[in-house]
């Protein structure tokens, strides 16, 4: 300690923050030290960088201001949560905490439940074969009944992955704050909502108070301009963004996805893009609401009708970021440079174009090389080898990232008239019962079945393998899900390559990682009609 010492530094204070002892008193001609003496030591977070978020006039700023309940000691904001989504994995302990404290649910009408993570995708008869899964589902049912919460269970006809059903029911709307004990809650930002994942103790807080203590994020606009080439999908855009910006660049940020490429995207594509914001470190991602969004929502079960609908649209339009909005940061990406993209490593940022070679260490920044070395070993891939042609054992189409109708159509277009390779396990898990019905109505289930894919019941399935769907041993999967972490798909040594649903279908019929563009062009040559979207 250097109490009693005084030090004079005439230059910028940042230069010495790292070497001085934290002081008792700062005399300065600027706002040095206001955010904490050490706050200027940048660590990738805007808070750490000693600067408060500066954005103004963005959708994020408007929605934040509207939901602000109170300022809390220490500078956090108490934010009202407009829609709370729960599922069986992260809620039971929250209900236990409520009971232990004798608390009730403040707005039971604003919490909606479904079951997705643990559900088997084959036999869904009760009791579930796995007693642990059955106990979790039973607990959810009991908690929802006890507190009067809406639950979309198996017999509702609307059960499915929470991030698929809330949009399709029209629960997720522009201007809402949406929280769920699941990191992929960022998905709902596609509607111009502030939507983010929370932990179980925060689930308790939302149940009890319909609010959370939060720090305001900075806003980074990611403008993606131009058209996507054939065979390139929203998933490729997401993987490309993460590859470009890194898996931690979004920490402390909300990502606003903008530009002509995003404007041209359908809602399901925007959901895929926002879903993966968390893989870039951004707790929420969003797209400004526009006519595409309103057309998607119109007449869905939980949206207003008649005059209220008109009032809603007027309000929703007003929420979009202003033309002169100020952003904390801006990034521009040319959509034309995006190719079908595949991950080669153990984080979603370790991605590459399908026609590239696995990067060598000297092609990577020094800071990324240790993780790359770990990834080469774990994935059993050599630096410099092409990723195309890599043999695949399991193909999984589904998840909150890519388990919607348009995803299944894209994959079916590749699967139609072809057959999965010998020895390949390939299966399709629709994101919800509604997606399953719609797909079956247009015969996609039959297309997949004829091609040798298994057609399953809705759930999260092998994205995180909390149900019986999982990799065995060192199996390598081509997966339309969102995480290629070590052990993610249920085997401690299992390996995952993330890619678009069409690319997964291409891998399934080829047996190896394949550039889907080669199959799409031959499908066109063969006169196969493209699916409507």
């Amino acid at each position, binding site marked *: 300690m250097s109490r009693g010492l005084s030090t004079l530094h005439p230059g910028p204070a940042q230069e010495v923050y*790292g070497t001085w002892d934290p002081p008792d008193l700062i005399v300065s001609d600027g706002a040095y030290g206001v955010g*904490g003496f*050490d706050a200027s*030591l940048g*660590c990738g977070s805007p808070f*750490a960088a000693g600067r408060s978020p500066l954005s103004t006039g963005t959708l994020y700023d408007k929605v934040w201001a*509207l*939901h*602000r*309940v109170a300022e*809390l*000691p*220490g*500078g*956090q904001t*108490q934010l*009202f949560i*407009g829609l709370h989504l729960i599922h069986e*994995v992260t809620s039971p*302990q929250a209900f236990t905490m409520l009971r232990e*404290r004798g*608390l009730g649910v*403040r*707005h039971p009408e604003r919490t909606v439940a479904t079951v997705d*993570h*643990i559900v088997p995708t084959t036999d869904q008869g009760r009791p579930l074969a796995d007693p642990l*899964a059955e*106990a979790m589902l039973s607990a959810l049912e009991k908690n929802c009944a006890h507190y009067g919460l809406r639950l979309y269970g198996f017999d509702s006809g609307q059960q499915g992955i929470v991030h698929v059903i809330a949009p399709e029911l029209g629960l997720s709307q522009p*201007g809402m704050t949406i929280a769920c*004990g*699941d*990191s992929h809650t960022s998905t709902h930002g596609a509607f111009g909502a502030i939507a983010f*994942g929370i*932990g*179980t*103790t*925060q689930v308790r*807080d939302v149940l*009890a*108070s319909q*609010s*959370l203590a*939060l720090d305001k994020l900075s806003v980074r606009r990611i403008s993606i301009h131009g058209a996507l080439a054939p065979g390139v999908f929203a998933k490729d855009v997401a993987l490309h963004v993460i590859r470009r910006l890194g*898996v*931690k660049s979004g*920490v402390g940020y909300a990502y606003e996805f903008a530009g002509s490429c995003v404007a041209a995207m359908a809602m399901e594509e925007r959901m895929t893009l926002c879903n993966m914001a968390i893989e870039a470190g951004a707790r929420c991602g969003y797209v400004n609401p526009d006519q595409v969004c309103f057309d998607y929502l119109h007449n869905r079960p939980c949206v*207003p009708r008649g005059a*209220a609908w008109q*009032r*809603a649209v007027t*309000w929703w339009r007003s929420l979009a970021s202003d033309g002169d909005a100020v952003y904390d940061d801006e990034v521009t990406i040319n959509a034309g440079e995006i190719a079908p993209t595949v991950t080669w490593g153990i984080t979603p*940022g370790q991605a590459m174009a399908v026609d590239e070679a696995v990067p060598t260490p000297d092609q990577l920044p020094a800071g990324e090389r240790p*993780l790359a070395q770990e990834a080469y070993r774990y994935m059993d891939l050599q630096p410099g080898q092409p990723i195309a042609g890599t043999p695949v054992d399991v193909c999984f189409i589904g998840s909150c990232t890519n388990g919607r109708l348009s995803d299944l159509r894209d994959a079916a277009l590749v699967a139609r008239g072809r057959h999965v390779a010998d020895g390949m396990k390939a299966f399709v898990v629709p994101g919800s019962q509604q997606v399953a019905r719609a797909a079956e109505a247009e015969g996609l289930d039959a297309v997949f079945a004829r091609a040798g894919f298994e057609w399953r019941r809705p759930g999260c399935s092998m994205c995180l393998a909390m149900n019986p769907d999982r990799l065995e041993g060192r199996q390598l999967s081509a997966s339309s899900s969102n*995480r290629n*972490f*070590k*052990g*993610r798909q*249920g085997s*401690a040594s299992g390996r995952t390559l993330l890619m678009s649903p069409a690319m997964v279908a291409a891998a399934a019929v080829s047996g190896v990682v394949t550039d889907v563009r080669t199959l799409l062009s031959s499908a066109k040559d063969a006169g196969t009609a493209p699916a409507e979207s």
Partner: protein
Amino acid sequence: MTPAPVTMVEGKAIPLQGHDIDTDRIIPARFLKSISFTGLGNHVFADDRAAAGGCHPFDRPEHQGARILVVNRNFGCGSSREHAPQALRRWGIAAVIGESFAEIFASNCLALGMPCLRGETGVVEDIQQLVQEQPGVHFCLTLAAPRLRGPDRHWPLMIESGPQTMLLNGGWDGTGLLLSHGDELQRTALRLPYLNDFVLSS
């Protein structure tokens, strides 16, 4: 139930090197199949530890009883599962020092009264190296002046003022504070168009 202020954490440290260590690795999903958090401490880093064959820091005898985990960049990324900090906590960890943290992980730690403090890369690597060389060293982590103090030196650390205040004044268990704003909560609900038939308040 008034939560206790968290002003300092004392004890041994345990280094865990590597960037982007995700919550699936901290606690694999198969251990989430439960309606309680009990028992998670036994399974922290289960797959990494099995792969390391007893050499993982969490298995090494010299690190048993450690309370301060020292990690690198973007620790706790991925899934929002609170099971991850719960597992660390139940193993014995009471505070985490790292180059940076994923946001949801850090807020989950805060909700448990478990501070996450950041240090510059050089600082974190320095601490990790010291602990590897002298695993028995006793440290004192302080929150008011965020720093880690060893026997003969100290390292500056960082924490945002919001979490810092909440830890220091016991407000990290915030349900009571949130509920104390009942009138403000009601006023907010009354001005949200989507809770009021989209009639816009003037």
